């Protein structure tokens, strides 16, 4: 597995991904542009939210798999990162739901005021 490269010619470098990276960056810019335009379009809200989330996720994946080389690295790196990502996402999801529940609604200012007035 550690067999040294038999093709030990001086020119054996990582193949350049220069143009590839430029293409990725262009795709990312275009997606960002689409996102900004999207929020101003008169389309159904649920559709825009879904589209925005999807587009962001696509951008996210492009960066981690290409710019961050996950695509070419050992799959363990991907697993490692996704452990954190999934736990963070899950925690966020749970927190938003807990705070979204009826039982968790904060006291409105009006209710607070009556609470204080009643003492007097």
């Amino acid at each position, binding site marked *: 597995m550690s067999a040294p490269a038999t093709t030990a010619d001086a020119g054996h470098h990582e193949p350049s991904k220069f143009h590839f990276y430029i293409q990725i960056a262009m795709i990312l810019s275009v997606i960002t542009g689409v996102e900004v335009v999207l929020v101003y379009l008169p389309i159904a809200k649920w559709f825009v939210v879904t589209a925005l989330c999807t587009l962001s996720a696509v951008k996210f994946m492009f960066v981690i798999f290409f710019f961050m080389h996950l695509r070419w690295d050992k799959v363990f790196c991907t697993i490692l990162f996704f452990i954190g990502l999934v736990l963070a996402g899950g925690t966020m999801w*749970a927190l938003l739901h807990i*705070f979204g529940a009826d039982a968790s609604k904060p006291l409105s200012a009006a209710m607070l005021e009556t609470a204080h007035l009643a003492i007097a």
Partner: protein
Amino acid sequence: MAEAIAKHAYTGGAHAPVKKATFELFARPTAKTGLVGWLTTVDHKKIGMLYGGFAIFFFLVGGLEALLIRTQLIVPNNHFLEAQTYNELFTMHGTTMIFLAVMPLNAAFFNLLIPLQVGARDVAFPRLNSFSLWVWVVGAILLNVGWLSHFVPAWKFGGAPSVGWFGYAPLTSKAFTPQLSTDLWVFGLQVLGLSSIVASLNFIVTIINMRAPGLTMMRLPVFTWMALVTSFLLILALPAIAIALVEVMFDRNFGTNFFEVSGGGQPILWQHLFWVFGHPEVYILILPPMGYVSEILPTFSRKPLFGYPIIVFSGVAIGFIGFGVWSHHMFTTGLGNVATAAFALATMAIAVPTGVKIFNWIGTLWGGQIMTRVPMMFALGFIWMFMLGGFSGIMHSAAPADAQQQDSYFVIAHFHYVLIGGATFALLAAIHYWFPKFFGRMVPEFWGKLSFWLIFIGFNCTFFPMHFLGLNGMPRRTWTYDSNMGWNEGNLVASCGAYLLGLGIFTYFAVLIWSFFKGKVAGNDPWDGRTMEWSIPSPPPEHNFAAIPTVHARDAWWYEKHHQEEIAQERAEHIQAEESHGGIHMPDQSWYPIIAAFGLLIGTYNMAQLHHPVEMFNKVIFATHLPLAITGLCILVTACYLWSLEGPGGYHLHIAPDGKVTESRGDH
């Protein structure tokens, strides 16, 4: 093959820079002993011992705090302590025992054992390891410096922190605890978190990447597996409390509204963020002890661990589910029925992998030849006590019943059964078990057993009655109670038990100190062990292994003991191969980790009192502590910069056939 192994031994690998001198502000320290040797060490064994020493010190401090607490409660309406002092004591007892005793003791064992169990010469990033140790010391200082203001009036910290170990907002806001001690608590925990994250990253890389040839993940000793899971829990859980602490710090110093009720803040968010960290923290405390016990039981049963894969997977499962049960600490905060039910069921689910571990430990005993040496007694005590603690845990998962137990002495009983009966018993077992390995001397059996029984009886006398105190309605964190509540006898027994427990702990450590000087000299393998650390001399040499071992089976050393010729030949080849590659590569010591930690101390200590003027000789020198805080930050950054420039460095060891070790420096 030999080439691969030789390369393996060389931690820097092909990427390590060629050693070039003359690029250093300080001469690179080379002293192996003495103060400089210890302060600049990068040797995982020395760092482990420093962790252990500091941790045992704070363990005894935390124990003393507990004894003061129990003394105050020995009779109703006692005035031995003032309310505020008592509150400081229980806050610091909890904080100390968790962050400054059990966690660093586990870190000590991680440091001491992981490289030995995976067959490596050191951890993956030795200087980073030294950094996390000294950063931990900084955190310990910040947390405890408040005690000084009880003795030196000029230090106006307002006593030690008094917000409870989980510092529920808004009690931590400036309106309710204006004292500096709360700021120091915030920064102290933050710094300890940094230390733990850095250390854990190091252990993760070490365990995953530095395994000896042949040591597949499913051959890893269980302790190392649990260390891996724990390290993952630490890096994933600590960020939550880091954010929560940042928010409290901002609330206190910069007027933000995260937990400020008048500004629309929701203090319950602190509880969520705290327990998102706090519940995995419980497993951070208990998983390594499960690892010790899983090493000790097979050794003294002379049998492999029963159901190794299931023990490993249940450890991983506990780690994962542990992130989904945090709100069971908050059943009484009005989460809503659905959330309460969901967290109650998840909590019950986590009992399954925990139970599985107990079944497997019993399976390990079954059919073995049980030798009841002291470590084994503590390990068996662990199983019994941890089982009881687990049962009261299941009782808490029934949320409506928990509404009566939450914040009562029943909870105190529960978590002390888990953390003393569980974690501490296992740690005491581990200290006793590995003492001969790291100090080369045996602890006498009689005194060990005596201390076991004192601790066992004292512990149960202290905490068993607390179940009943809780059921009888005694709330926790109360500095006094009335005589008509039916709590007098329970508290009296508990306090007496606490003194007995204290006596037992004292005996235990006194015997250790005696053994360090006078104990019988131990051989390499006094217990007939099964894992790789028992294959090397006691205490282990600086380079751990003369030759990096090749692992052929799960209990690597047990296998080697039963295949001696084959192994001897393999070893000789490895030594030769490594010597032909320039000898054993060892990393250089460095000043920068401790200097960086010093910068952090100056920075955080002054950040904590940011808005207070700096006085010296009764004169105000600076209007705020900002200049000093920035100075600390600059020291930290500069040290990190120089650290990155100096490079890992290194030197080589050469082992002569007669075992004599010589050192060489310079290019290879």
